[in-house]
């Protein structure tokens, strides 16, 4: 789960990482109230989960109430790469002497943690990595041992952060590492991490991705969920406990297993169609799960046909077939359904469906045949 900047800053603050004083605002009036409370000048920042806000006009400096009104009014509702701004973060403007970059993430090939630190922050780190790779200091961290202050001190020196910033930065990086590990982040990134003229170091931005698998030990994540979904289809699917991702095609997809679901998207694409979604119903495809899946897909107005692709392993195909029939009794489905059923008890499953087949409920013998049929019906 990706956090908005303001949520990331609130998360950082839990671990003692210094951030600028500020608050969220959903209206111009709220923005004004925050600005009056924290004092001018303030920075008004669009809260969207996409990069390039500044260039799109989503970050503005305001010296007085009039400017807050003007900028907050312009930014709210702004469309930044398909993300409409509904919330602002208003914070005290900081004087900047230097901009650094710091992040922790998993180094998948080496199966260790990777710290990245640069004295050249403020720009996209991919650009720095491309044009000036020696400006980034990489630190490989053994997850068993972690990061201690001594190592962190050597690291900030090696990265050639300004002398006056080093001690504060070293301590902040240890806190950021704690936030990353104890806070179960896939990514904890600060860009820029700034040094002010009066020689304090703090986080001016926050990019945090949380590991959903760890949510059982983080009840505090609940508050982030309310704002998690911008896509109403995904919200509906999540409420029904489904693993769903909305896409913009016309063939609704239901498959068991993430790999097979991904592969189904690919095959639909190969035969000239476009998928409306990714949906993995997992191992137990009973009537409830199937009904919920069909319901979510049925609610998508773009869907013209539905491709149910099942390879029974643990999942028994006869149960899937019964599930589909039961689901159809409960939910009225607008689009034709094409099923491909293979694996455990496939013969029984096809037998169960046989008397019910019509031009709205179709079976095909292979994944490719079923994809072609579903795409033909959608186009």
């Amino acid at each position, binding site marked *: 789960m990706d956090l908005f900047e303001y949520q990331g800053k609130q998360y950082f603050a839990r671990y003692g990482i210094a951030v600028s004083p500020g608050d969220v605002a959903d209206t111009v009036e709220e923005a004004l109230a925050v600005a009056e409370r924290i004092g001018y000048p303030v920075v008004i920042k669009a809260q969207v989960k996409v990069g390039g806000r500044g260039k799109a006009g989503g970050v503005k400096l305001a010296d007085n109430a009039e400017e807050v009104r003007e900028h907050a009014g312009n930014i709210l509702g702004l469309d930044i790469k398909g993300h409409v701004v509904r919330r602002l973060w208003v914070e005290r403007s900081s004087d900047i002497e230097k901009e650094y970059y710091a992040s922790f993430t998993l180094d*998948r090939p080496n199966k260790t943690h990777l710290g990245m630190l640069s004295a050249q922050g403020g720009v996209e780190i991919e650009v720095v990595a491309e044009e000036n790779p020696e400006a980034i200091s990489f630190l490989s961290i053994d*997850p068993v041992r972690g990061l201690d202050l001594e190592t962190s001190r050597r690291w900030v020196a090696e990265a050639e952060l300004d002398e006056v910033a080093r001690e504060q930065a070293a301590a902040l990086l240890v806190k950021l590492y704690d936030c990353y590990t104890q806070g179960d982040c*896939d990514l904890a990134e600060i860009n820029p991490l700034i040094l002010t003229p009066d020689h304090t170091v703090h986080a001016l931005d926050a990019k945090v991705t949380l590991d*959903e698998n*760890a949510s059982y030990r983080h009840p505090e994540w609940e508050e982030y969920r309310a704002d998690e979904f911008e896509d109403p289809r995904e919200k509906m699917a999540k409420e029904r406990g489904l693993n769903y991702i909305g896409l913009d095609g016309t063939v609704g997809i239901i498959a068991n*297993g993430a*790999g097979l679901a991904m592969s189904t998207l*690919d095959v639909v694409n*190969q035969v000239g169609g476009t998928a409306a979604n*990714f949906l993995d119903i997992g191992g137990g495809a009973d009537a409830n799960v199937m009904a919920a899946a069909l319901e979510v897909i049925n609610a998508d107005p773009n869907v013209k046909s539905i491709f149910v692709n099942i390879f029974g392993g643990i999942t028994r195909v006869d149960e899937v077939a019964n599930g589909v029939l039961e689901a159809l009794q409960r939910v009225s489905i607008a689009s034709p359904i094409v099923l491909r059923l293979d694996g455990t008890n496939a013969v029984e499953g096809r037998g169960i469906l046989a008397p019910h087949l019509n031009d709205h409920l179709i079976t095909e013998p292979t994944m490719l045949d079923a994809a072609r049929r579903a795409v033909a019906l959608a186009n």
Partner: protein
Amino acid sequence: MSIFVDENTKVIVQGLTGGQGRFHGLRNRDYGTKVVGGVTPGKGGGDVDAIPVFNSVREAVEATGASASFVVVPPKFASAAIIEAAEGGITFIVCITEGIPAHDEAVTFNRLVEDFPGVRLLGPNCPGIISPGKCNIGITSGDIALAGGPVGIVSRSGTLTYQALHELSVQGVGQTTCVGIGGDPVPGTNFIDCLSAFQDDPETKAVMMIGEIGGSEEERAAEWIKHNMTKPVVAYVAGVTAPPGRKMGHAGAIISGSKGTAQAKMDALAEAGVHVCLNPTEAGAKMVEIVKAM
């Protein structure tokens, strides 16, 4: 021959008394796997359908001589169960548990490397391993596999592993071993471990490899194949149409920035001389063609 397991492998099931552990443990035994014990703290002395249950892995290993463990416990207990297996003398651990936090996986993996260098972990979040006719540890349905070789299969995805077995078995092409390495960010066993074992296994004549988006394991495997693999490899990579920045079901299946795309993986594999196919059916057909020509 087979890799990692064979007909003599003795297996204990950690979590045998749970619903899933019982179901899959008994299925594995019915397949012919030597399932010699179960471990559930506090339930030692009992049995599950005549399989003795022990309080700890150490006790189970001492009593049965098991060398492999099948870990079927919920995510919050899985890391401790894996370490307990290693401490108890198990050398091959299969963990099917889905949903383990990535940081726990990273710590567990490194603890194994540092303190138990002789131990191999398969998974977590994998379907397990099957050597048809000999040993099945995990959740793969034994009847879709065909004994006798000559194909080795290694896959990051569960259902696509079944699909691959199915595509070959219906054409009469058998498998030496089929390994599901799992779709998590920190897999205990990776493609190269399996490719290397298949390369050394005289009965494996060709390898089918199924990858997916995310990470760079397929690219690393391609590099390894280029320099070390003499046996033909057929590959399929799922997720060509996956959008960046979205986890496609598996915790490890995510395209970050320009990294981890299916196209980059397919290009790297093709460049290494691998037969890259666009869907599982095509990959199956290609493998059948290669085997029939041998």
